[in-house]
């Protein structure tokens, strides 16, 4: 009989808690969204699986000595994984649309209003009983509005590690939902005539400009915003490897093998933070709500800025491209292209939207640097 009790005690069945079962269901939901609905599958598959693993009773994946504990400790607590991913993103980014029309940087800047507006909103949520966000928490939540996974994870790991799971899940879920969240806002804020505006073709950018650009961005970040240099620095390194053309091997590794390896570990580590006591809280609901608001505000601010810019500009600007200012590369730019085509099937905005799109990546990295400097 003793042996039977012992055997029973060594099964998970005897130790399951309700929270763990719910969190495993959340993990399965993430797997479903990734596999069936194709929502950001590259990240949601490892995140969802990590969530299942971390909630297994007795296995101790996320306790000292467990696999996920060390992956999190090595990669996210130190900030290394998001930065390596950012290097890969840099190696995949083509800045020529932005260099050809640098004013698009203003659209990328305007869309960051989503971040700072949400920061305000997160603090205002403290008026509702049950919410107690500190300024650090609020900043980490607000960065979801930057629509940039690695930036959000980097900032959250520095400012509010206990909210990291919810923030990462919200950030990646909403990035997958960009084609659903953005178009209604875009249609609401623009008239059909505005959506119909055709933009002048972009000039061809020389290779030398593309090589100097990341160095110039880095120099300015060093001078004015050193707290953003981890993000911007790795991003510029990746971009320089690509544009210089002399280290194709390194550039290929950064944008393929390395980013893939790191993505697996990053996803697992984020999943390990989806434990019942951290995730099944009222705060998570608040974070999910605020994330959606952040995306919407960012989109609206970008469009309104594009309208304002179009009024003062000699060249015509289609206000739709402002919506691409919330990074989410290249999804947001594709959405702009699609909404543009609905109005005029001959008006291709993809290349024009790539300018504000990559500007948004820089903008959210800069915003993260500001938050780190002022709140961290």
């Amino acid at each position, binding site marked *: 009989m003793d042996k039977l009790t012992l055997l029973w005690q060594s099964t998970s069945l005897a130790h399951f808690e309700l929270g763990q079962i719910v969190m495993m269901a959340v993990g399965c939901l993430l797997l479903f969204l990734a596999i069936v609905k194709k929502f950001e599958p590259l990240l949601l598959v490892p995140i969802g699986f990590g969530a299942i693993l971390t909630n297994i009773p007795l296995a101790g994946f996320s306790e000292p000595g467990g696999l996920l504990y060390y992956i999190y400790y090595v990669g996210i607590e130190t900030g290394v994984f998001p930065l390596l991913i950012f290097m890969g993103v840099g190696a995949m980014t083509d800045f020529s649309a*932005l*260099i050809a029309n*640098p*004013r698009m*940087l*203003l659209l*990328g*800047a305007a869309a*960051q*209003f989503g*971040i*700072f*507006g949400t*920061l*305000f909103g*997160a*603090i*205002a949520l*403290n*008026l509702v009983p049950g919410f107690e966000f*500190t*300024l650090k928490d*609020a*900043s980490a939540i607000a960065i979801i509005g930057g629509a940039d996974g690695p930036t959000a994870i980097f900032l959250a790991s520095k400012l509010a590690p206990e909210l990291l799971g919810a923030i990462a899940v919200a950030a990646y879920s909403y990035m997958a939902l960009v084609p659903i969240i953005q178009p209604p806002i875009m249609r609401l804020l623009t008239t059909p005539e505005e959506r119909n505006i055709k933009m002048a*073709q972009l000039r*061809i950018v*020389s*290779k*030398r*400009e593309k090589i*100097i*650009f990341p160095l*110039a*961005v880095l120099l*300015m970040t060093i001078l*004015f*915003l050193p707290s953003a240099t981890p993000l911007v620095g790795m991003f510029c390194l990746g971009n320089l490897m690509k544009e210089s053309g002399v280290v194709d091997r390194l550039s290929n590794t950064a944008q393929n093998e390395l980013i893939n390896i790191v993505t697996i570990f990053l996803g697992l580590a984020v999943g390990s933070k989806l434990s019942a006591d951290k995730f099944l809280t009222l705060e998570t609901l608040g974070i999910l709500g605020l994330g959606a608001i952040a995306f919407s505000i960012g989109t609206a601010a970008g469009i309104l800025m594009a309208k304002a810019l179009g009024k003062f500009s000699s060249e015509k600007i289609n206000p739709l491209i402002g919506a691409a200012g919330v990074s989410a590369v290249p999804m947001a730019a*594709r959405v702009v*292209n*699609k909404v543009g085509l609905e109005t005029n099937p001959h008006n*291709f905005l*993809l290349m024009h939207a790539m300018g504000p799109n990559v*500007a948004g990546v*820089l*903008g959210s990295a*800069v*915003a993260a640097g*500001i*938050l780190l400097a*002022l*709140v961290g």
Partner: protein
Amino acid sequence: MQPDVTSLLLEAGMLLLVGMSVVFLFLTLLIGAVNVIAWASAKFPEDTPSASKNMHNRAAPATSQSGVPAPVVAAISAAVEQYRRQH
């Protein structure tokens, strides 16, 4: 609790103002930097033989380097893009 939230809200408001100003300032400076780079590139064109050949091709905006007219290239890439999205 209440006065605490008020002071936090004030601080968040300040962050909103300061943050947005710095983002705009930084990216505006970057616009200036990109314009300087473009100006310098135009002023001192690359003088390697292959580069000057490229420059020559660029002078004729209607055709790309392979001799296919640019509007045709644009139309084909757009069609490919559309096809990929549908399939």
